[in-house]
């Protein structure tokens, strides 16, 4: 498959593996946070860790949109569909995320709530067109990657005078999360970052420069294919060894310094900053999320309906919050594999395929078992 298989070649992986092994300082430990769930998924799915020397450690970051959405927002969505008789349109991976009181969108749907799975914002628009007598709410989540399509959908709805189309906006911003991790009261030891892949196609590599400078952390924008991850690790190790802290771009086939200006303009036209937003694991982060501008209030579910903020805790013992901060690993959680499995997730990190727990459980636990056995 053109442009995919080139980045999954075994012989190149072996060469990169050797280059990394030669580049590392044996007396040093390298703690690299892969920011995105896409990276976490690639690391586990392709066994990238097996090709790394022992002193290169991956710390899984918060870049999984489903994982960082706080439980209260899922509760809000369920209330919306149950109390206001709307059609709620959602991407499939939100369906199984645990809500309060052992509920979830999937269970609410089984109980009669009109929740429909869609594959794109266009699917939600179609449902709105097909059901003119119903209010149709799109449950919008995600980082800067999925925000422009939401903006397009809102503009389309406006142009079509589709007044029954609404957005429950939960879009969040990557640089704010990176800052929160670095500014945490008890910061996790991180030497360098594998920077976001798809997000950076939109926002560019420039927004990370301040982190490289102010916090002296090397950052390499890394693609999601396994060879991208390995090449980026090599670039980070070289920076660390040479005492540099720069933003470098491994994913140059898709990311520029400025990013996608048209997409940025779209987002700025439709959305504005929320003063603060709650992230699972990271708590309240100022200026970290978007809401619809006043000029698009007609499409804002939070303005159309009464949606009070809901404070909801995580399941007792669930380590999702610490895992999302990079403070713990999936295997540190006592619930993992005992009560929390992909079939019966207790926390969001076990739900999304980008979640660290799901990736570890689906692909990585073999490695742990083999290590125990030997």
């Amino acid at each position, binding site marked *: 498959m053109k442009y995919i298989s080139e980045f999954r070649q075994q012989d190149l992986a072996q060469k990169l593996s050797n280059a990394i092994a030669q580049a590392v300082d044996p007396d040093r430990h390298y703690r690299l946070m892969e920011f995105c769930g896409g990276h976490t998924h690639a690391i586990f*799915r392709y066994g990238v860790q097996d090709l790394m020397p022992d002193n290169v450690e991956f710390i899984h970051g918060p870049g999984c949109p489903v994982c960082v959405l706080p439980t209260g927002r899922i509760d809000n969505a369920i209330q919306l569909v149950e109390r206001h008789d709307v059609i709620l349109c959602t991407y499939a991976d939100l369906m199984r995320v645990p809500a309060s009181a052992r509920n979830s969108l999937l269970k609410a749907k089984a109980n009669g709530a009109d929740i429909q799975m869609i594959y794109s914002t266009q699917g939600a628009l179609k449902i709105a067109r097909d059901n003119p007598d119903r209010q149709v709410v799109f449950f919008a989540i995600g980082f800067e990657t999925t925000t422009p399509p939401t903006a397009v959908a809102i503009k389309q709805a406006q142009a079509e005078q589709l007044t029954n189309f609404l957005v429950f906006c939960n879009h969040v911003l990557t640089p704010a999360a990176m800052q929160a991790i670095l500014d945490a009261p008890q910061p996790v030891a991180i030497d360098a970052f594998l920077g976001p892949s798809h997000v950076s196609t939109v926002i560019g590599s420039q927004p990370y420069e301040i982190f490289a400078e102010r916090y002296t952390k090397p950052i390499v924008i890394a693609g999601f294919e396994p060879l991208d991850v390995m090449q980026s690790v090599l670039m980070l190790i070289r920076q660390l060894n040479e005492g540099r802290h720069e933003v470098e771009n491994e994913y140059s086939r898709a990311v520029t310094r400025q990013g996608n200006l048209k997409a940025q303009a779209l987002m700025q036209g439709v959305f504005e900053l929320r003063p603060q937003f709650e992230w699972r694991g990271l708590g309240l982060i100022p200026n970290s999320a978007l809401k619809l501008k006043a000029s698009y209030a007609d499409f804002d579910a939070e303005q159309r309906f009464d949606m009070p903020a809901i404070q909801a805790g995580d399941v007792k013992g669930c380590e999702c919050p610490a895992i999302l901060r990079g403070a713990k690993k999936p295997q540190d959680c006592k619930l993992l594999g005992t009560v929390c499995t992909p079939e019966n997730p207790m926390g969001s990190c076990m739900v999304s395929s980008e979640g660290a727990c799901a990736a570890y459980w689906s692909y990585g636990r073999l490695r742990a078992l083999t290590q125990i056995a030997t």
Partner: protein
Amino acid sequence: MPNPYTSSLNIKSGKVDLSHGGGGRAMAQLIDELFIKHFDNDLLRQRNDQALFTVPAGRLVISTDGHVISPLFFPGGDIGSLAVNGTVNDVSMSGAKPLYLAAGFILEEGLPLADLEKIVISMAATAKRAGTPIVTGDTKVVERGKGDGVFITTTGVGIVPEGVNISGNLAKPGCAILVSGSIGDHGVAIMASRENLQFQTTIVSDSAALNWLVADMVAAAPAEIYCLRDPTRGGLATALNELAQQSGVGMVIDETQIPIKSEVKAACEILGLDPLYVANEGKLVCICNAKAAECLLAVMRQHPLGKDAAIIGEVIADGHGFVQMTTAFGGRRIVDWPVGEQLPRIC
């Protein structure tokens, strides 16, 4: 006997209504002019509520399968051909020669009779190719909105030849794992034909009856085939996990040996799916004595439905019952049970 009906069924523009399931003359006419006309065989023409036939010596196999696929017509097949192939394959995976089928129809009020006829004609042709006549059946009609066009349940019976002993619990360490052709075609074809997924592909469903392929394999190595399974919902990954669990063994498969069409790979990349979990309707997994693997592979490749067959891995001893895969990238990972529903109403 004169024609008991005042006028013939209006197939061209008529629709299924509640009377077609009411047990009266309208239902009798639907059965006569649609089902018996196309399924046409001696047993069905007797018009009994059951089919009576003599059973050859040997062990009898029975299997049943409900079909609720959406859409009813898709590239490479329709719910009718799928309903026949699905049950023929389930019977065949015991190594049996399938003999007869029964079919239960749940029709939704308002279904165009022209669509129903297309489905029935497709079922008749598929059953003829498989050599498994539909000898008895049932028709019910539900109100509009209580079904989705048509649901079809088929039941099949077959006879297992002497000396053949095939079951999901017989895989042993050292056995070879074979697959009869490219995986994921059916699932991708269905996804592409759903209206809410806007992408186009040349992939068509692989829906096919595997009984003749199985007959060739069983004839070539009757005592060396231990397990057969058609990897339908949940795909190859699920079929292998089922067999590993039933047999209490592990498996290691080699990603580079698994046949997958490049169009299927591309569609799965776009949709974020893993082809190992995508449905098939005309493929089988065979676990056999490693010594017979090459011979069986050659036999399979001579059959049109097995021309892309491949040896994809081996059975190992493993208390965890893991299915592992050596990846094309050089690592090793678990190929786990699927979680939830990747795509509802795929068959």
